[in-house]
């Protein structure tokens, strides 16, 4: 009995000490875990701890923040002003280029550099049966057409521009260095009724052509007169644009 109980007792005390050792090391581990857990949590907690700040610190921080906000607002205003002015500049530039393009087109038509089309009239003038049509009458016709609001005029193969001349040659009319031979075809783009009236006016150039020169004048109105004749631009030698 004694023999039997003694080892059992030793065993139990051994087991107990083992258990306590295990327990204490577990406790130590738990405490260490608590420590490192708290450390990591504190490190990860990057929020500003306003709780721990004094009133003075908070006031200072508040004023600093509001100053910064004010500075940023000023900067924003400045930048948006810059943006607006840049946009305005861009708009102006686009407007200028649009105007330049329009100008280029209209001056191209005006100077005869570009072909043009639109409503207008085509005047067919046959050879004069009584006399040869002279340059002055032809020029009169052009002037009448201009007065009638013709924007683009062409005679036979010659585009009529501001510098166009018609002169009397030995065997016919000469226009800008090109011989004009009857029948003459005068095309003009403009208000077709006005142009027709300008030619057919009583006592006007049309009747003069018929009566004086015995030519037949046939005015044809059209909604789509195409003038494909062009003039090359003259090289201006003396004239310069005023800056």
């Amino acid at each position: 009995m004694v023999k039997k109980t003694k080892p059992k007792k030793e065993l139990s005390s051994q087991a107990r000490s083992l258990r306590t050792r295990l327990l204490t090391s577990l406790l130590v581990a738990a405490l260490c875990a608590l420590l490192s857990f708290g450390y990591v949590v504190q490190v990860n907690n990057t929020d500003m701890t306003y709780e721990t700040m004094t009133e003075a610190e908070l006031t200072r921080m508040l004023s600093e923040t509001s100053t910064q906000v004010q500075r940023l607002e000023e900067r924003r205003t400045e930048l948006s002003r810059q943006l607006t002015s840049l946009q305005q500049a861009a708009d102006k530039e686009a407007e200028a280029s649009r105007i330049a393009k329009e100008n280029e087109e209209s001056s191209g038509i005006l100077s005869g550099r570009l072909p043009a089309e639109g409503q207008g009239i085509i005047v067919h003038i046959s050879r004069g049966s009584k006399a040869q049509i002279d340059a002055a009458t032809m020029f009169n016709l052009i002037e009448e057409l201009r007065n009638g609001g013709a924007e683009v005029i062409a005679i036979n193969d010659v585009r009529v521009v501001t510098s166009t001349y018609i002169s009397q040659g030995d065997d016919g009319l000469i226009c800008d260095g090109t011989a004009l031979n009857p029948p003459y075809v005068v095309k003009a783009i403009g208000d077709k009724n006005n142009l027709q009236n300008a030619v057919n006016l009583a006592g006007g150039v049309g009747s003069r052509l018929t009566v004086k020169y015995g030519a037949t004048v046939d005015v044809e109105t059209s909604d789509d007169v195409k003038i494909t004749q062009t003039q090359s631009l003259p090289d201006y030698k003396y004239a310069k644009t005023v800056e």
Partner: protein
Amino acid sequence: MAAVLGLIIGVVVGLFVKPDIPVWLQPYLPIMVVAALDALLGAARAYFERSFSDKVFVISFFSNVITAALLVLLGNQLGVGSQLSTAVIVVLGIRIFSNVSAIRRFIFQG
């Protein structure tokens, strides 16, 4: 061994759990961590001096942490919270330095 294991477990758990610290605990947690560190280093010193007692370690751990937290609480209530927590940190820092130097003496025998 158990201590090192515990430290590693705590770091891992802290990295993965990431709990929100309650607001009332925020001023105390750093102080508590430093106090616990002091207790841990004191235990390490005792271990090297062959006088380590788990009971003493547990008690000193908790008493350190609670005392530090109470001191800060007292300071907050008296309006000298930041100063008093600085004082606690300084004292704990001095203790940590002395513990570390004692450990060093045991490791390098001098």
